[in-house]
């Protein structure tokens, strides 16, 4: 049956009908095109931002952080405050080394500190890291703007700064800083590197400093305040639960807790993309439905004649569905082209660094699969919309129509 229906004659008739109403056909095509364009631009942009944030956040931050619980504030303030170290770090290490889902883990000593440059002073914190294990956690080479990475931390007074922090302090690589710790101790530091993860939440506060030096200055040689863990499978939450049970006096936080706003932001962007695209395709589909419906009403006589000269209901459905398919295909292809063009233009638009992300231009994805998806969606919607009028056309009763004149 279908082999009989799909033939050059029926396709020819479909084309003649489209060409006979050029203006309407063009409008319908433009409708589909705009739907597909919007879909592609939106999904390129939204997933571009999502991927960018994922990359910046999840490659810049650990998946799980174990940190010392804040001790209850003692009633009398003490000078020379000691920082809270994690207890039984050896036990934690032992536990982690047995886990399968762990990519790598590293210790950090994080202490509050005031950073003083020639022109500015800022309260903040110092991340004391062990370069050999930290480099398994963060691919700093990729993030380096200036200077050197972890390897420079072999000098005991070397420090690496996030770019926003460096800007605030008005310093760059080679400049000096003074660091003042809560216990009053201070030290002159040399900036050996400046890095950027692309998001201000990191670039504003992160520093890398040799943990050994920090421990010495604090007078707590074994102090470890944080254990950072990178997972093989980030979505496997089993480990967090297990750690919570086994490690008593510690706070355990995973990437979902730490990046709630970003996780939610990604979700919101996903929902936005799909709902807006869906709405637009719906509008395009409705346009198609409308135009084909009008054609069917205007062409009832012709349909009746086709039926009397041997065209079956299936032929008629095909002829009209074919019109939808042609418009859908054209609209979708043009839409994909225009979508690419607009995406390209956005990706080439210079962008002022915002409060949130630090990029030169908008992050845009150019994945082939989105174009395929857009084209398939465009054609499917149009054909679905065209199906109902086509069905209606096939039901035209030739006797009623021919008699009705």
């Amino acid at each position, binding site marked *: 049956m279908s082999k009989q229906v799909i033939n050059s004659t029926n396709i020819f008739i479909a084309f003649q009908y489209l060409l006979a109403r050029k203006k309407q056909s063009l409008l319908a095509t433009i409708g589909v095109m705009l739907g597909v364009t919007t879909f592609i631009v939106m999904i390129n942009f939204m997933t571009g931002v999502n991927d960018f944030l994922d990359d910046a956040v999840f490659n810049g931050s650990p998946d799980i952080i174990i940190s010392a619980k804040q001790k209850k504030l003692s009633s009398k303030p003490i000078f020379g405050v000691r920082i809270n170290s994690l207890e039984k770090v050896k036990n934690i290490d032992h536990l982690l080394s047995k886990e399968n889902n762990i990519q790598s883990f590293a210790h950090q000593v994080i202490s509050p500190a005031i950073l003083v440059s020639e022109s500015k002073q800022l309260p903040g914190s110092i991340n004391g890291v062990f370069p050999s294990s930290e480099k398994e956690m963060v691919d700093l080479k990729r993030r380096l703007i200036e200077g050197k990475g972890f390897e420079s931390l072999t000098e005991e007074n070397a420090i690496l700064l996030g770019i926003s922090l460096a800007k605030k302090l008005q310093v760059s690589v080679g400049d000096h800083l003074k660091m003042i710790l809560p216990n009053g101790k201070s030290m002159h530091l040399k900036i050996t590197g400046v890095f950027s993860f692309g998001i201000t939440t990191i670039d504003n506060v992160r520093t890398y400093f040799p943990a050994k030096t920090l421990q010495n200055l604090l007078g707590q040689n074994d102090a470890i305040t944080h254990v950072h863990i990178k997972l093989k499978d980030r979505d496997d939450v089993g480990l967090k639960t297990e750690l919570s049970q086994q490690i008593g006096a510690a706070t355990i936080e995973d990437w979902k807790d730490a990046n709630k706003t970003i996780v939610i932001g990604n979700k919101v962007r996903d929902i936005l993309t799909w709902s807006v695209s869906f709405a637009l395709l719906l509008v395009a589909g409705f346009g198609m439905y409308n135009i084909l419906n009008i054609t069917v009403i205007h062409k009832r006589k012709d349909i009746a004649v086709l039926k009397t*000269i041997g065209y079956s209901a299936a032929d008629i459905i095909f002829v009209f569905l074919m019109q939808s398919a042609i418009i859908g295909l054209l609209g979708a292809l043009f839409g994909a082209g225009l979508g690419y063009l607009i995406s390209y233009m956005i990706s080439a638009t210079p962008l002022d660094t915002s409060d949130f992300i630090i990029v030169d231009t908008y992050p845009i994805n150019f994945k082939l699969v989105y174009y395929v998806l857009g084209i398939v969606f465009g054609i499917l919607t149009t054909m679905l919309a065209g199906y109902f009028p086509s069905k209606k056309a096939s039901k035209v009763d030739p006797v009623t129509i021919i008699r009705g004149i």
Partner: protein
Amino acid sequence: MILETKHINKYFYEPEKHQVLNGISLQIASGELTSVYGESGSGKSTLLYILSTLDSDFEGSLYIHDRDIKELSAAELTNFRNKHIGFVYQFHYLLPEFNVLQNIMLPAMKLGKKDKEEIKHDAVMLLEELGIQDFAKRSSYKLSGGQQQRVAIARALINDPALIVADEPTGNLDQKNSDVIFALLKEITANKGKSVIIATHDPKIYQNSDRAIEMIDGSVRL
């Protein structure tokens, strides 16, 4: 004999149930031009729609080429009609999107027995026989009524059907064109051996047919 009906009754249900055809039993001989005449409203069109298999909602039986039409499925019926029956309406009903040649070719392209070139050749031959070869490439709506009706006859003939059914084919034409069309239909009967059934209320036509059947109030008077 090309066609036979046995006790055909036809009812319409709007506005209420009423009988429009009343026990029609007919035998139509092959190679004859048969007219069905009668007053407007007597049921000529209704009968012709049934005889041309467009309307299968009736009581009684219809045999064409000894095939019981009621035994055919909808799809089979469509094919059957395509192959064996040509239909000419009072109004030409050409498709405006297509030129004259394309209009004529449509039933044959659907039948798919011949390739496009052969069909085109057949169509051109028909145009010549009907004296409208000059209009082949013209849009169908740019022709006069008589010319359009000739195109419609060519379209009805393209698949070389045994039976041509024409519902008031001259009803919309002036006397001169009317004469031309009737002459053509007679010629088709005589030279091509077709069976032609014409519904008409033009005495000039039914008096010059091989056979004339009068319809009165849904019954035939033989």
